[in-house]
């Protein structure tokens, strides 16, 4: 079951996800949430994965789709607060080479300034 919260922080849209990001795991998908932000014209999106306890290949696919959709809208999508498990998943699938991700929240937010 995925829960989410969206808020603005220093001009950046933060999408905070919690719970399981799995096939059939929620009514709202990450993809829809990101699309919503892009349609509002948001250009800087930070996905906070700190509360995500479980993610399957569908979740990874959602992340990839979010990333490419953001690109098409000339927006930037970055990740923060990866748990060890999610970091492992990104490494094994070599998606770690695709995503820009940060350990700390402040570091992630200020990276958008550059």
């Amino acid at each position, binding site marked *: 079951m995925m829960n989410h919260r969206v808020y603005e922080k220093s001009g950046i849209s933060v999408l905070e996800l919690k719970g399981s990001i*799995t*096939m*059939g795991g929620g009514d709202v998908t990450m993809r829809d949430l990101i699309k919503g932000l892009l349609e509002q014209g948001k250009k800087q999106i930070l996905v906070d994965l700190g509360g995500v306890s*479980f993610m*399957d*290949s*569908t979740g*990874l*696919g*959602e992340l*990839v*789709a979010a*990333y*490419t959709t953001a690109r098409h809208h000339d927006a930037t999508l970055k990740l923060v607060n990866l748990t060890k*498990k999610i970091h*492992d*998943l990104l490494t*094994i*699938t*070599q*998606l770690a*080479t*695709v995503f820009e991700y940060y350990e700390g929240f402040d570091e992630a937010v200020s990276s958008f300034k550059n």
Partner: protein
Amino acid sequence: MGPETRNDLKISIRVRSHLRYSDLFHTVLGQVARLVPLPAERLDWIALSLREAVNNAVLHGNKNDFSKWVEVEMEVSGTTFTIRVWDEGPGFSPGVLLDPRRPENLFKPNGRGIFLIRQFTDRADFARSADGRFGICMSVDLDSNEDKEAGE
């Protein structure tokens, strides 16, 4: 292991083809893991493999047809833990599988399920049951300390 400490068991769960049962399978695996026991650091990855296989059975195998069945089997025998997931579909040739790590596949949203299963289990084979169902058979060696997680 002495006979009294062995945990030989065989579980079969047959449900209609729907993703709502994934948590049932996941919970049962968690219980079995405590009994067997499965190494704690591997449990989440084995659970992930189970879910991937069930997703495939429901979506690709049974094509979301709720009148079809999915069966999940879990078996502990000697030092091997095996999970089998059966669907009523036509199966597929493993030749269709692409390496999701290749640059041309990296940005595709799909195609990582079986790759992850192969990373996180010690053996994954496809099979056809006596009654014609298609299945994936995933095994974990219980006495190996080899860390599959760090594999490749």
